[in-house]
């Protein structure tokens, strides 16, 4: 999270209802230059609605949004020139070729050096080989890159990407994630995802939304360290009784739980989330152990804990 970059998105008390449903419920946050903010949350948490309001496609019921200091409600056109937006499922005109589609976007954005912009973005998004193909004939991974290319063509300060890797296979995901990572310096990116690994890989800030409210605003590393089971130690007892070892560990004051897993391994969770490997080894004493490893917290477990709390 960058503390000193220029504020590019400032959202205050943003609220939107769909009939009786409160899709977004009074959220406020700022995103600075250099930030890659991941919106995490279950489906229906309000991620897409919030993004649509930032881009000016939806009007909020209450609250304000400023992009690069410009009020979205007052001057959507000026804001749209500063934003690159990839809507959910990367919609594009399927009957057009990649090149014709990008030319349309460049024309609509009234770019001065149209051809250079198109060439540059074909290069960045690795689309040169398919430039003459119609978009409907492309694979999902290419289509997504076409969506990213149109969002990037005017080299915007602000990128809003709604589930940029959703529905892609692991290889396509990696390509798109690398592309996003390569774009992150010198602008701000807001992306939504429900893949927590992706947030860890790409983002330097994570916001968990549920039922329209912000539950957590932190860095992915912090989230990992708060996750249940962070720094849990697992090992196999090669000489001695696993049950006895587990019982002995359970008596120590730093231990939250120690149990024998169905596969015969012992798992010890520390109470404070600190790395307790040395304490574990000391407590094991005369028993011989092997395959000792410390595991990281699992974001999805934290995510479930946090979002379940709201739903309950």
């Amino acid at each position, binding site marked *: 999270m960058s503390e000193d970059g220029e504020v590019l998105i400032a959202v205050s008390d943003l609220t939107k209802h769909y009939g009786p449903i409160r899709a977004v419920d009074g959220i406020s946050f700022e995103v600075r230059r250099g930030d890659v903010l991941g919106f995490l949350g279950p489906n229906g948490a309000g991620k897409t609605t919030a993004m*649509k309001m930032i881009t000016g496609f939806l009007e909020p019921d209450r609250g304000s949004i400023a992009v690069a200091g410009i009020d979205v409600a007052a001057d959507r*056109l000026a804001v749209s020139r500063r934003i690159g937006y990839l809507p*959910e499922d990367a919609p594009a005109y399927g009957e057009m070729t990649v090149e014709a589609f990008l030319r349309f976007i460049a024309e609509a954005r009234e770019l001065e050096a149209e051809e250079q912009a198109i060439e540059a973005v074909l290069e960045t998004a690795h689309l040169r080989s398919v430039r003459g193909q119609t978009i409907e004939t492309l694979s999902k991974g290419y289509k997504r890159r076409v969506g990213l290319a149109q969002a990037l063509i005017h080299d915007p300060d602000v990128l809003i990407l709604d589930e940029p890797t959703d529905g892609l296979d692991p290889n396509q995901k990696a390509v798109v994630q690398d592309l996003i990572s390569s774009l992150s310096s010198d602008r701000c990116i807001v992306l939504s995802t429900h893949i927590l690994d992706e947030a860890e890989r790409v983002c330097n800030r994570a916001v968990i939304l549920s039922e329209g409210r912000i539950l957590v605003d932190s860095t992915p590393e912090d989230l990992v360290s708060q996750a249940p089971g962070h720094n849990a130690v697992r090992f196999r007892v090669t000489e001695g009784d696993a049950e006895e070892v587990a019982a002995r560990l359970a008596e120590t004051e730093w231990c939250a739980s120690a149990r024998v897993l169905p596969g015969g391994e012992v798992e010890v969770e520390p109470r404070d989330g600190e790395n307790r490997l040395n304490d574990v080894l000391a407590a094991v004493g005369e028993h011989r152990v092997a395959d000792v490893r410390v595991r990281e917290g699992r974001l999805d477990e934290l995510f479930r804990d946090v979002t379940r709390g709201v739903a309950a």
Partner: protein
Amino acid sequence: MSGLARRFTGFRAVLRREFHGYFASPLGYIFIVIFLIASGYLMVSRDFGRFLELREANLDALFSYLPWIFVVLVPAVAMRLWAEERRSGTVELLLTLPITLEGSYLGKFLAGWAFLAVSVFLTWPAVFQVARLGDPDWGAIFASYVATLLAAAVLLAIGLLFSALSKNQVVAFILAVAASVGFLLIGVPQTQEFVGKWFGGYVERVVSSLSLLDHFEALTRGLLQLNSLLFFVLFTVGWLVCGMLVLGQTKTN
């Protein structure tokens, strides 16, 4: 930038894309072929235009049936324009570019209208034949083309409204045909007689002043009357404004 120009920001890019779009698929060519066959048939048919029997050097036989062909074909030109954007989600892309809703709406309307104009001007061999066979009234022919384009514009604006209303192209098409037929039927003598009998002469005059067919005929006779021109312009603008209001509501559904 003045306020009005700003309101229609981006219409040129949309106009160009949509106009090329008609020729990027077979749809545009199929439309033109069907239009030319239908208008040619109605022109020379013994049951309709009777061009060959009448032996007159004018094109009434051609122009008087064009509104009825348009009732079916113009909704076919219009149906895709918004329904497809909303079905595929590209409307979100379009309306987050530096393009206003009004600008994109106008761009699509002008693209459809330009395409219809191309189709209409492909009837030039008929003009050529009339000129070869006799001495036609060029003023009337010019006025008839103007009237045809104006009728196309008002029907296209109706079609665009229903395309903004329904995500389903077929539904948009059927509703637009029904509305256009209704709009034309106001002008047939039977309707006016019926209205006159039940509601009196004043209502009859009001209804007949709303008749597309009457205004169309008045123009094709070669009289570019102000009230008929205004009729077409006002109704086209009216339907366009209604469509923009509808799209403002339906774009996010």
